[in-house]
């Protein structure tokens, strides 16, 4: 039987791409096939699901459990705040993971992970067993660390998880009075997306400059300095936004008052018309099921050759929840790279081989400073066997020399392309 006839007997054209065959493979349940459950369908989880199917050539069954029906991107969501994108632009379906790659996608929430029995309990559906599990839970907020914040995210939006919060903050900004004050609080590092708060300050200021030119933006940073792309953001604050943005370092937030929209800082007190607090954060609480110690009570340590949680073989963790390696940001791009590292290791381990001894990760992170111009930071990270961790490659990586329209085009293309890399 030649390839054409062979495929036709399956109802597939000879030009059918390999990925369509993968989708067909999974629809026929197979006894004894390895089963991996991926929890969380963000930049890390969705990429893991796709690459497990691709790199195992359909030999590993993959189930993705995600609590939202659709993917919403955090990267680019600061553009929504400035009215330069809609939330719809950032929203995508998981359908291609199902139809092209044969991933079983379950819209549900994980209630508990039983590591010993290799089982997940779900909130609405029957529990599922796994041979390996990949957790990509993102971050949860330590709301209790800011007095008065709990239960007040309607009055004081965080907009640090893209979705309804993004639209809520956009409406607040639009409704701000002429000459009003927008106060933005940055938590102590590490937090999700190091350059994100400073990009947000620039983009909100860009909007204010055009629509409410007498308004002010107070950037209240718990850190002692700008945490990413420092010189480039400092140039934007001192240049185009010098009459709007006031940057205040060492501004640890103690409490907020949701009625008066005031914020009590360690050395100061401010009142705002729009108060946007990015709360302190930690690994998604799902990791508490694993009963492992968290560094600073927040982040879980992994073996960088496989992304397995320390002392929990078969349980992989990727994305913002991971205790970062030196110089490694909590970014969507890094989550994509950790996803591939985990997927590659899982395929090798199921085949009884050793994982890649020198896993290498790349990060390229764009930020917009206005509607057209963007800047980047790039780093390359490689496993160092002697140190037992991943380290930045000396001499590699760097920053933009200046903000440019050319990088604005690359930033927009990055967002579309990385989405295709995980969901198409």
């Amino acid at each position, binding site marked *: 039987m030649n390839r054409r006839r062979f495929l036709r007997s399956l109802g597939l054209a000879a030009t059918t791409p390999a990925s369509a065959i993968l989708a067909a493979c999974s629809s*026929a349940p197979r006894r004894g096939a390895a089963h991996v459950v991926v929890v969380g369908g963000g930049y890390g989880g969705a990429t893991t699901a796709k690459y497990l199917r691709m790199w195992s050539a359909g*030999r590993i069954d993959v189930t993705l459990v995600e609590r939202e029906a659709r993917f919403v991107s955090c990267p680019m969501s600061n553009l929504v705040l400035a009215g330069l994108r809609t939330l719809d632009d950032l929203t995508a379906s998981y359908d291609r993971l199902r139809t092209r790659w044969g991933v079983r996608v379950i819209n549900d929430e994980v209630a508990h992970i039983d590591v010993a029995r290799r089982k997940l309990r779900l909130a609405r559906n029957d529990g599922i067993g796994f041979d390996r599990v990949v957790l990509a839970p993102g971050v949860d907020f330590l709301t209790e660390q800011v007095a008065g914040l709990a239960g007040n995210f309607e009055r004081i939006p965080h907009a640090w998880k893209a979705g309804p919060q993004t639209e809520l903050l956009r409406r607040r900004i639009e409704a701000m009075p002429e000459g009003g004050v927008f106060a933005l609080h940055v938590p102590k590092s590490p937090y999700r997306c190091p350059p994100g708060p400073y990009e947000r300050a620039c983009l909100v200021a860009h909007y204010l400059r055009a629509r409410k030119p007498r308004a002010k933006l107070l950037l209240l940073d718990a850190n002692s300095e700008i945490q990413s792309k420092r010189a480039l953001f400092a140039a934007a604050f001192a240049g185009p936004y010098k009459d709007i943005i006031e940057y205040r370092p060492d501004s640890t937030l103690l409490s907020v008052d949701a009625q008066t929209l005031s914020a009590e800082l360690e050395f100061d007190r401010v009142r705002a018309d729009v108060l946007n607090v990015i709360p302190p954060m930690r690994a998604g609480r799902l990791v508490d099921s694993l009963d492992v110690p968290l560094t600073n009570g927040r982040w879980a340590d992994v073996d960088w050759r496989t992304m397995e949680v320390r002392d929990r073989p078969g349980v992989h963790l990727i994305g913002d929840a991971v205790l970062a390696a030196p110089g490694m940001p909590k970014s969507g791009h890094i989550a994509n790279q950790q996803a591939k590292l985990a997927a590659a290791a899982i395929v090798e381990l199921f085949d009884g081989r050793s994982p890649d001894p020198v896993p290498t990760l790349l990060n390229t992170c764009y930020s917009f400073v206005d509607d057209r111009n963007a800047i980047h930071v790039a780093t*390359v990270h490689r496993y160092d066997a002697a140190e037992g961790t991943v380290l930045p490659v000396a001499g590699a990586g760097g920053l933009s020399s200046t903000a440019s329209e050319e990088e604005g085009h690359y930033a927009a293309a990055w967002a*579309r392309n990385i989405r295709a890399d995980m969901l198409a």
Partner: protein
Amino acid sequence: MTGKSTLAALCLLAGTTHAAAPAAMHARNLAANCTPCHSPDAPAPNAIPRIASLPADRILQRLQAFRSGNAPATVMHQIVRGYSDEQLALIATHLAASPDPAFDQR
């Protein structure tokens, strides 16, 4: 051969032919560093160039030109310095052999 058993055979075949040797596996993993930006599934037109399916020597020449500073770049000159000559060659060879769905559909 029934449809079902043919399908099972095909799945098995897909599996055995894709089991990667260590060197090929390492090359594939390195090339996956590139695809967040240079995804073969990226929509066209695109500000970021497609590289899958291009000839390996063309990809490698370009990567080396970024490293020597002979090709203008915003970020690529910073990225290529994170990889050895040998790694760049592995990446170029793997990308050249990668199918690009945009070309398949023509």
